[in-house]
C-alpha cells in the first residue's frame, strides 16, 4: 500500500499534459499566430512579384519569388544614412537620458536631503500636467532647435516614470552600505559611482532599453520638428513612404487610378517595414526579460 502512490505520481510526471493543457496550448498557439502572421504576410509580400500581390495571391508564402524590393532599398543610400542617423540619435539620447535620470534619482533617494519632498513634487507634477504639443513646439522654435538633430534628443530626454522607478530601486538598496562608505570618508559622487551604480546594473540596463526602444520607435517628434531630408530618422522616412503609397491606395479604392502604381510600392513598402523592424527583432529575444522586470518595478509603490 505504501508503494502505491509512487508509481502513480511517476506516471503522472511522464504524461504531464491533460486534456485541459492541450486545449490551452492550442488556444495559445492561435494567439501566437495572431501575433506573428502579420509579419509573415509582410515578409511574403516583400518577396513577391507585383502582379502576384495585385491579384491578391500572396498570403503567407512568397509568390513568384523576387528580391527586387530589397535591391531597391539596399541601393538607396538615403535609407542607410537614415539608419545610421537613427542609431546615432538613439545612442546619444540613451546615454544622456540615463545620465540625467541617475542624477535626478540618486539625490532623491537620500533621506537627509533638504527639500527632497519639494524636488519630488517638482518631478511628479510633470506627469500630471504638461505644456502640451504647441507650447513645447514653440519652445523648441525659440531655442532655435527646429530642424536640428537636438530637437530629437532634448525635448523628451528625461522620463519622470523612469526617474521614479530608479529612485524606488535605489531606495531598496540597504542603507548600511552607504553609511559604511561615508564613515570611510567617501563623498556622494563616490557612493553613487562605486556603490549604487554597480549594484543596479540590471535596473540601469532595463531603463536604458526603455529609453532606446522609445527613441528608436519615436515618430511624432521628427514629424513636428524636422523638415530637411537629411535629418529624417527611419520612422519618419518609412512613414513618408507609406503615406505616399496610401494616397495611391485610396485613389485606387475610389476607382480613379491605375492599379500598377500601387503595387510598385507594395513590395518596397513591405521590404522597408522588414528593414526597419529587423534591428528590434534581432535584439528583442535577448532583452525581453529586462523589459518585463521594468514593468513590474514600475508597479511597486514608491
Amino acid at each position, binding site marked *: 500500500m505504501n508503494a502505491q502512490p509512487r508509481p502513480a505520481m511517476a506516471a503522472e510526471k511522464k504524461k504531464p499534459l491533460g486534456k485541459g493543457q492541450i486545449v490551452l496550448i492550442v488556444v495559445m498557439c492561435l494567439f501566437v499566430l495572431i501575433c506573428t502572421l502579420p509579419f509573415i504576410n509582410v515578409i511574403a509580400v516583400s518577396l513577391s512579384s507585383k502582379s502576384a500581390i495585385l491579384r*491578391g495571391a500572396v498570403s503567407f508564402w512568397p509568390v513568384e519569388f523576387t528580391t527586387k524590393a530589397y535591391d531597391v532599398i539596399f541601393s538607396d543610400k538615403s535609407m542607410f544614412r537614415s539608419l545610421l542617423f537613427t542609431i546615432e540619435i538613439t545612442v546619444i539620447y540613451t546615454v544622456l537620458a540615463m545620465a540625467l535620470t541617475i542624477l535626478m534619482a540618486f539625490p532623491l533617494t537620500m533621506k537627509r536631503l533638504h527639500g527632497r519632498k519639494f524636488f519630488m513634487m517638482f518631478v511628479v507634477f510633470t506627469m500630471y500636467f504638461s505644456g502640451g504639443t504647441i*507650447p513645447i513646439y*514653440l519652445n523648441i522654435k525659440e531655442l532655435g532647435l527646429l530642424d536640428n538633430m537636438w530637437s530629437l534628443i532634448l525635448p523628451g530626454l528625461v522620463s519622470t516614470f523612469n526617474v521614479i522607478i530608479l529612485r524606488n530601486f535605489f531606495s531598496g538598496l540597504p542603507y548600511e552600505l552607504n553609511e559604511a562608505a561615508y564613515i570611510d570618508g567617501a563623498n*556622494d559622487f563616490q557612493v553613487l559611482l562605486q556603490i549604487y551604480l554597480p549594484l543596479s546594473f540590471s535596473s540601469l540596463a532595463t531603463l536604458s532599453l526603455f529609453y532606446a526602444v522609445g527613441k528608436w*520607435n519615436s515618430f*511624432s517628434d521628427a514629424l*513636428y520638428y524636422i523638415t530637411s531630408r537629411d535629418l529624417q530618422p527611419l520612422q519618419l522616412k518609412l512613414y513618408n513612404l507609406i503615406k505616399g503609397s496610401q494616397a495611391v491606395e485610396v485613389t485606387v479604392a475610389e476607382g480613379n487610378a491605375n492599379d500598377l502604381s500601387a503595387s510598385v510600392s507594395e513590395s518596397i513598402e513591405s521590404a522597408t517595414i522588414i528593414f526597419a523592424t529587423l534591428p528590434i527583432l534581432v535584439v*528583442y529575444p535577448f532583452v525581453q526579460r529586462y523589459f518585463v522586470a521594468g*514593468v513590474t518595478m514600475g508597479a511597486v509603490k514608491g
Partner: protein
Amino acid sequence: MTAIGRKKRKKESWIRRDWRLYLMLAIPVAWYLIFCYKPMTGLVIAFQKYNIFKGIAGSQWVGLENFRFVFGMRDFGIALRNTLVLNFLDLLFGFPVPIILAIMLNEMRTPKIKRVTQTMLYLPHFLSWVIIGGMVLEIFAPTSGVINATLLRLGLIEQNIPFLTDGNAWRFTYVLVGVWQSMGWGTILYLAAITGLDMNLFEAARIDGANKMQQIWHVTLPGIRSTIVVLLIMNVGRMMSIGFDRPFIIGNTVVQDACDVISTFVYRAGIKNNQFARATAIGLFQSVVGLVLITAANFTSRLFDEQGIW
C-alpha cells in the same frame, strides 16, 4: 551657544555636507525647467491673439476668445467625440483581453511553451506605430490585402470590406489593431499579481473539490480584483488623452470624420496651419479636463486599494 547660532550652524552644515547632491540635481532640474516648466508658461498664449513675431510679451490679450472660437468649430466637436469614442471602444474590447490571456498563461504547465508564447505575445508592443501602420495598410488593403483576398477567395464576402475607408469599419480596424498591439504586454501586471497570490488558497479550493474553472472564478479573479479595478479606473482617468501616432498613422483623409482626434487636430491646427493660440487653447482644455479626471481616478482607486499610482 545660542539657539540662533546653532540653527545657523546647522544650515551651513547641511549645505556644506550635501552640495554634491545639489550639484547633481542641478542638471536634470535645469532640464525640467527648460523643457517642461517653460512650455507650461507658454500656455498663456491660449488667452492671447498670439503673434509669433511679437512673442508672448508683445501679443494682445483676448480673454477666452480662442476658447469660444474653438468650441464653436465643427471639427473640434468631431475630434472630441472621436477621442472619447475610440478610447471607450479601446477600453471595452482592449481591457478584458489581457486579463483572460494572463489567466490562461498562468494555467500553462509547460514552461518552455509558455516562455515562447509570452515572447511572441509581447512582441507587437515593441514595434513603432509607423511599422504597425504600414502592416495594417497592407493587410487590410482591398483586393491585394491578405484579409480581403482570403475572404473573397473563400467566398465569404462578395465585395471588399472597406476596413480603412469606411468610418465604422475603420473604427473596428483601429480597435482591433490596438488590442493586437497591447494584449500581450498588458498581461504582465496581471501575471505578477497572480504570482503574488497565496498558493494555499488554490490548494484549499482543490481539496474542497473545486475544478479548474471554479478555482479561477473563486480564487484567481477575486485575488487580482484590486489590480483590475485600479487599472480600470486609471484607464477611465485617461479618457481625454489619446496618443498621436496610432490615429494619425492608421487614419486617412477619407475617414477624417472617424479618425480625427484631439491630438491630430492640434497638430493640424497648430503646427501645420500655424494657429498656435487656438491649438494651445484646445491643448489646455484637454490638459485641464485630463488632470481633473486623473486626479479623480487616483482618488477613487485609493478608496479601493489604499494605493494610487504613487
